[in-house]
């Protein structure tokens, strides 16, 4: 009996020693801190991203947590989220709150460049890695700041490459030689305009920019501008603005009777439902735009494929007014990158997390495409192809991808009927 007792005690002590070694210092939960904007001008891009991230987090917690290699076990996630109401100053204080008072393990920014901008120096100051969800401002990424990585959306300076490539490669064959660029003067669309200009000029394709005008983001009437554009006789018109700009522009195009042969806008692709509601299907017919990841079934090597994610979204947010789309995929992608990083990092040290995230670059393929970073942490993968919206026989808008050719699903319709 005594021998059995000693043996049992030995086995028990060995087992517990192993368990202790595996779980040494393991936290009871991983604290993930983020902000969202339930109101104000960024609510429409913030809430889908936040809901996407929440969906991933709740799914992981339902499975017992996320696997953390540093502790060799699954650990539940705790979400600490504050509402910045689209206010920059409030966001700054709340980011600080997350870092200094809540002491989060992972810091995730709000959506968009404006609400991310204030987090960049704060995160750097506190040596916290900023998981930048969709803040694509080129200013954020500098070689001397290792505390930022961009999850979804390519950085603004390379985002429009498919558009420029299409115009400079296929454009001349179609007859596109004169291009007009009209853009809203904010970081997001201004940087895109700079990139389009640069790509076209560097291509030496013979395509000429005949109109290039920046206008205030608050612009809501484009009638005079449209007439100015028409006077330059362009073959293609590229309008780069936020959703309200695109809505006003496309309405003015319809009302004026001006029919650009090629018309590109950003938001018909990113927020199709919103644009269709405000402009109508006919106004979006044959408009060129980015094809968002929510329209492309990428072969995901990690996480749910698009179809399953959409089903999970519809189930969870059955009564929600937040639309499924490009941004909802971005929030979920953030979760997937965090999950992969925690499974690869040897500790929760912020630079170790960065190293783990960088190790995923070019290898991680999610429903958002291939995750790829440059040396400064800017996203250069997850490129949105160029597509054209076409009204089908049932009056439904569908995307026809036209560039790059290897993912094209159809031929472009040019000139726009």
């Amino acid at each position, binding site marked *: 009996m005594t021998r059995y007792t000693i043996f049992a005690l030995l086995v028990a002590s060995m087992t517990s020693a192993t368990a202790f070694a595996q779980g040494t210092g393991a936290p009871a939960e991983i604290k993930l801190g983020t902000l969202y904007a339930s109101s104000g001008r960024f609510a429409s891009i913030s809430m889908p991203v936040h809901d996407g991230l929440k969906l991933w987090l709740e799914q992981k917690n339902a499975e017992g947590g996320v696997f953390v290699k540093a502790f060799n076990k699954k650990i539940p996630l705790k979400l600490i989220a504050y509402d910045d109401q689209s206010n*920059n100053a409030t966001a700054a204080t709340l980011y600080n709150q997350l870092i200094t008072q809540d002491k989060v393990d992972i810091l995730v920014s709000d959506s968009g460049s404006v609400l991310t*901008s204030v987090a960049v*120096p704060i995160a750097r100051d506190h040596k916290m890695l900023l998981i930048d969800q969709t803040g694509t401002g080129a200013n954020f990424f500098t070689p001397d700041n290792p505390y930022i990585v961009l999850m979804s959306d390519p950085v603004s300076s390379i985002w429009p490459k498919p558009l420029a490539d299409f115009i400079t490669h296929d454009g001349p064959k179609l007859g596109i030689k004169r291009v007009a660029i009209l853009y809203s003067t904010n970081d997001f669309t201004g940087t895109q305009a700079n990139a389009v200009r640069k790509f076209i000029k560097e291509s030496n394709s013979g395509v000429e920019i005949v109109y290039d005008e920046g206008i205030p983001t608050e612009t809501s009437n484009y009638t005079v501008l449209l007439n100015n554009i028409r006077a330059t006789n362009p073959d293609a018109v590229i309008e780069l603005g936020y959703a309200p700009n695109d809505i006003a522009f496309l309405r003015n195009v319809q009302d004026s009777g001006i029919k650009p042969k090629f018309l590109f806008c950003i938001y018909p692709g990113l927020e199709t439902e919103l644009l269709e509601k405000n402009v109508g299907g006919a106004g979006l017919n044959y408009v060129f735009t980015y094809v968002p990841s929510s329209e492309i079934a990428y072969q995901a090597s990690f996480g749910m494929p698009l179809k399953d994610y959409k089903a999970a979204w519809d189930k969870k947010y059955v009564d929600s007014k937040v639309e499924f789309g490009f941004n909802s995929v971005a929030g979920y992608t953030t979760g997937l990158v965090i999950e992969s990083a925690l499974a690869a990092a040897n500790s929760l040290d912020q630079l170790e997390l960065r190293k783990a995230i960088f190790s995923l670059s070019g290898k991680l393929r999610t429903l958002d495409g291939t995750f790829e970073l440059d040396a400064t942490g800017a996203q250069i993968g997850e490129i949105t192809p160029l597509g054209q919206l076409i009204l089908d026989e049932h009056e439904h808008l569908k995307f026809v991808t036209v560039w790059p050719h290897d993912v094209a699903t159809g031929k472009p319709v040019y000139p726009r009927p």
Partner: protein
Amino acid sequence: MRHVLLILVPVVATFAILPSVYSNHLLLFNFMIFIMLAQGVNVIYGFTGYLPFGYVGFFGAGAYGFSLMVIHLQAPPLLALPVGAGAAVVLGLFLTPLFRLSGAYFSIANLAAALAVLQVVSNPNLESITKGPYGISLSGVFNPTLAYGTALAVLAATLGLVIYLRNSRFGMALQAIREDPISAGMAGINVVRERIIAWLLSALIAGLAGGVFAWYVSVFYPETVFSGEFTIFAIVFALFGGNATVVGPILGVVILYGLYNAVGISTPQYFQLIYGALIMGLVLFLPNGLVSLLRRWGLNVP
């Protein structure tokens, strides 16, 4: 001297000590910025009666003056700061014709001027100079600790100035102008000169605050430093505490900005309701600020 010991020293000492016990340094920094701005509004509105709706124009000018010195001339921050503040003072000089207006007309013209400066700064055609709408990044001089220390010095200077105004003939002259410019002129006060000096001092305070803010945050867009919220907050804080006093704007910032953050963090969904109700209550029951309540209780508030 009494006010220096009773107000300036404790306030500055508090902000010097707090970072070692409270780690949300940006929040403490923002408290200092708003005390400076509320005191700046106090100088021009509290003492002379001109309500500057476009006060943020000076703040933004200071921020951009600082940033452009750093970007284009690689100036060290401690040199760029006074030059940035100088940009705000030059803007103030440029706007002196606004004093031909009074009351709401002055306020609205001042607001328009601030918006015009914002449009100029964010004009994409000036990208090579101001970086246009694409924002400023000052990662090369990023040093929050030194920026915090400098803000502390600017705060001390601002409080020192307001204490001087509260206790000097110049401050009395400004208050006389506020009450009745014609009578003040008749009494030998050079109304135009004194008013312009107050205006430029007020611009200087906002310019210094803007410069040090730009240094601390280091990445910002034109809309960030020309945001009307800075003006609104500064005016509301100054009014809440009580104008033409040293303590009033400090009380206003500590209570209202403290509440703003407490409510914003704990119950953001009720934020606007609580804040709005509080300001309505203030306007209805304490139009002269908290200080008037303290005075009603027999306390001598400087």
